[in-house]
């Protein structure tokens, strides 16, 4: 998946598992940047009676690097706490929840937002902001979207925030992809034949996640708050990643409670989708999650020579002959994932942050939102889409799969001709994204309710 359960240790710790990160110029207010970090993968909508919530013992960060060194210059930090109205019932809600302060809303979650600067100084921007409940069903959470809208808060410092359940925005055919890369449209050419090709399955269309979204005026994120002159201006590019941390020691007490001690240690990290998932080998994944992007040079070989690029020609004999014959380091992937694309590689575009190799989304905030966006982003001729940041609807799985298959290699190596299959390979052909997203903040769609989606 994008980064759901992508490493052995974090797969056992869902509330700290950062599943997706998005960074894009807000399409309905291009003076702002929207940053989103999702956590808690594959929430079954009917997962009660203890419905999903953020971890009170986890610190959630969204980081912005505005000087290209791969370290955070601005961090928005989110801390959560639970308030239980009535500990003498097993019910999440004791009646319909029609407002965030409804007396029927038994287990409420609140959070604080702070900003940490590059010297580590933390300033609280707001406290006691309410989260919405999970979407349970029409009796418990009627008019859910109205209820959730009450949980969009405007901070005194100018940002808007939302933290709560949303519909999963990332779409992928999990079952096929994990079954030795059963890919379309040539799955019948797979090394292991399983019969006629069948349509792809959108495995995540009925699951939810927990979203932290913040919409920030652009000038609050640029170095020294400068206004970039144009898309070529180095100040126009922001590096974005997210992380989650836990205290170093956790003591399980005999009374059923726990205590935490010591500094916060990073247990999850995410910039570009699918990096730790599909490029970093199993034995390195947990360590990768603990490191900042500025330490990514040590993982360079896995980007330069991705295992998946070697597997594709093996799994699909004869389909990727040019890719199979290519043995040089993949400069295209290094540029896309670790440094950004310098000006001129693609006409009228750059998202280059300098030579420092660091896995981050890189958003050029001087590229206006597209009027007719392509889900294939820059591969589809849409400079406002991935890998220029990442929008909620970008088909990042297909984009990265095609890049790894060689579709982007001619950008940096004119001796290479991409295989025809490189620009066709995908998992779901023509996914139905109707009603998957919102046209406004927080952009990810209304979560499915348990009543609506009973267990399969």
């Amino acid at each position: 998946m994008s980064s759901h359960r992508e490493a052995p240790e974090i797969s056992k710790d869902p509330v700290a598992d950062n599943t997706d990160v998005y960074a894009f110029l807000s399409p309905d207010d291009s003076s702002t940047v929207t940053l989103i970090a999702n956590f808690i993968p594959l929430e079954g909508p009917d997962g009660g009676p203890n419905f999903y919530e953020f971890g009170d013992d986890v610190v959630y960060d969204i980081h912005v690097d505005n000087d290209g060194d791969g370290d955070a210059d601005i961090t928005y930090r989110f801390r959560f706490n639970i308030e239980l109205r009535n500990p003498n019932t097993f019910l999440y809600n004791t009646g319909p929840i029609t407002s965030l302060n409804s007396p029927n809303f038994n287990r409420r979650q609140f959070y604080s937002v702070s900003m940490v600067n590059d010297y580590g100084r933390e300033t609280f921007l707001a406290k006691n902001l309410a989260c919405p409940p999970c979407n349970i069903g029409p009796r418990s959470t009627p008019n859910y979207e109205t209820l959730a809208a009450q949980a969009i808060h405007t901070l005194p410092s100018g940002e808007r925030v939302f933290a709560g359940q949303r519909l999963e925005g990332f779409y992928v055919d999990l079952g096929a992809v994990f079954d030795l890369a059963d890919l379309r449209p040539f799955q019948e050419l797979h090394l292991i034949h399983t019969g006629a090709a069948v349509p792809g399955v959108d495995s995540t269309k009925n699951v939810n996640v927990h979203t932290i979204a913040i919409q920030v005026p652009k000038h609050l994120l640029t170095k020294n708050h400068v206004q970039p002159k144009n898309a070529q201006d180095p100040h126009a590019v922001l590096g974005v990643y997210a992380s989650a941390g836990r205290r170093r020691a956790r003591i399980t007490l005999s009374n059923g409670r726990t205590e935490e001690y010591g500094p916060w240690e990073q247990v999850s990290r995410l910039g570009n989708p699918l990096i730790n998932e599909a490029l970093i080998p199993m034995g390195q994944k947990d360590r990768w999650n603990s490191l900042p992007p500025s330490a990514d040079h040590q993982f360079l070989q896995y980007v330069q020579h991705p295992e998946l690029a070697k597997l594709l020609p093996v799994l699909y004999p004869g389909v990727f002959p040019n890719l199979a014959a290519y043995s040089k380091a993949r400069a295209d992937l290094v540029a896309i994932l670790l440094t950004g694309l310098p000006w001129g590689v693609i006409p009228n575009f750059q998202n280059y942050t300098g030579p420092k190799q660091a896995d981050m989304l890189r958003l050029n905030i001087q590229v206006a939102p597209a009027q007719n966006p392509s889900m294939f982003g820059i591969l589809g001729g849409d400079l406002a889409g991935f890998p220029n940041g990442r929008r909620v609807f970008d088909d990042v799985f297909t984009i990265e799969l095609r890049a790894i298959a060689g579709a982007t290699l001619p950008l940096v190596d004119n001796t290479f001709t991409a295989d025809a299959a490189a620009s066709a390979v995908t998992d779901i052909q023509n996914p139905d994204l109707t009603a998957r997203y919102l046209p406004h903040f927080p952009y990810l769609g209304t979560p499915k309710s348990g009543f609506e989606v009973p267990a399969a």
Partner: protein
Amino acid sequence: MLKLTRRMLIKQTSIGVGTVGVLAAALTTKTRFENSSNTKAKAAEESGLATGEGLVVYVTDSATGTLTLLRGERATTITDAALVQHLLALK
């Protein structure tokens, strides 16, 4: 700076904790301070800890006598080979 003397560390870690490697020394757990509120308050005051506040000490390298103290959101590393040997010898 932690106001934690070696004597206090021994006092806090040598009671009711039989394992070596990870030592949880919360004053609210079963320690000899539990029987005397005056002693408990005095011990807390001496250590610089608020009454009821916990402290975790763990031996990170017994060969070099390195310990790490976790208190609040801070971590402090100290080296005291004699103390580590003392802890290792505890039954």
